[in-house]
């Protein structure tokens, strides 16, 4: 049953993308979507000067939390500066909630070779 709902949701979402993203909220699946969004979280670990996973795909409304496990501070800085952490010392965390679908590339402003990406895609389910 759940699987079916997801499948239908996907189709509906594709249609919604063509019209307006908010259309989906107005459907019979609105509650599912809200619950899914409220519960969603994603984790990115910063270790050995890399973001892992380097690319993370989440649904809109997901809060992503970065944790720095290195002995050296890092930052999480969106290329378009739409989000930006302070310097994260060892074990410090930074969270940001992604509401708008799109691709968000980010990097560490201290070590700019460190790059990562969050893909916010409606209709995605947690793995």
């Amino acid at each position, binding site marked *: 049953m759940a699987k079916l709902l997801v499948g239908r949701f996907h189709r509906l979402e594709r249609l919604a993308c063509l019209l307006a993203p908010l259309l989906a909220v107005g459907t019979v699946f609105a509650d599912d979507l809200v619950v899914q969004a409220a519960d969603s979280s994603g984790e990115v670990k910063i270790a*050995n*000067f*890399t973001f892992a996973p380097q690319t993370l795909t989440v649904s809109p409304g997901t809060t992503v939390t970065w944790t720095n496990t*290195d*002995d*050296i*501070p890092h*930052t999480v*800085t969106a*290329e378009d500066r739409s989000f930006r952490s*302070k*310097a994260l*010392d*060892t074990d410090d965390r930074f969270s940001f909630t992604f509401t708008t679908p799109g691709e968000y*590339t*980010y*990097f560490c*402003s*201290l*070590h*700019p*070779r460190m*790059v990562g990406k969050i893909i916010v895609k409606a209709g995605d389910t947690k793995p």
Partner: protein
Amino acid sequence: MKTPDHDNLPSEDDDGISRRGFLECMTWAGTGVLWMVNDGLPRSLGLSSAQAASAVKSSPLTFLQISDSHIGFDRPPNTDALATLREAVAKLKTLPGKPSFMVHTGDISHLSREKEFDDADQLIKEVGLPVFYVPGEHDVLDEGAGKLYRERYGKGSKGAGWYSFDQDGVHFIGLVNVVDLKAGGLGNLGEDQLKWLEGDVRGLSASTPIVVFAHIPLWSVYPEWGWGTDDGARALSYLKRFGSVTVLNGHIHQIMQKVEGNVAFHTARSTAFPQPAPGTAPAPGPMQVPAGELRKWLGVATVNYVPGKKNLAILDAPLMG
């Protein structure tokens, strides 16, 4: 201090210093290493302190380099970066020669906190010399992206904190390559600073010795770890016509030396913690060394300029050994 038992001095080969030679010097637990650079061929010589003293006594201009003090860092292999800075300051006071001033090539603090800068300043002023700073990426972490640094150290500087000055016929240039870094890139000087640099050296005669100092190496040490500066080559292109150019950097927490044409590059040790040699670890974080050996990996440098000699002599002195 005793002369290092180092029977196999690195030999100079055609392209300058050999990698083997460089590694030997890096792990050398003896006294200082004097880098003599003549006609483009660098040689490192093991020195007794008497030799070092005579090497620098003939020099009319001596200055000191200190780097990467990372005050606030408190994790292995060094839980007290302030204590090792204190030892470095003590070391600087005993180095031979009469230094005119000191340069600090950045990462004064670990997290750009007022207290970290305060603690560093308290100690560094005990050396009793004027200090010329450039910021490291750890010094520009405040909300204002370096505002705290500039308020404290940037008087009379331009832009993000760059400047130049003259001393005993040598033209010194402090550059900033740690702000406004671009995703996927390396250290960055930026258009404004490059324009300023071009103008700054325009009126100088080609025989003026130039010393450039900046935090991140201006040359490509190891781009995979971000150890290089995207527009460093452009900065160096403005210095091509000068007979003697010395580039002093920090950031990589280890000694590295290279000569390319008229330019001698040198990086200094940190006073806080060592970092691994390029590619020898998964990442360039602090290198773990036995507690008893930490001070062999930390150190300071003395730089000597003798008028008429093309190249400056750099003496790297470890905190212990």
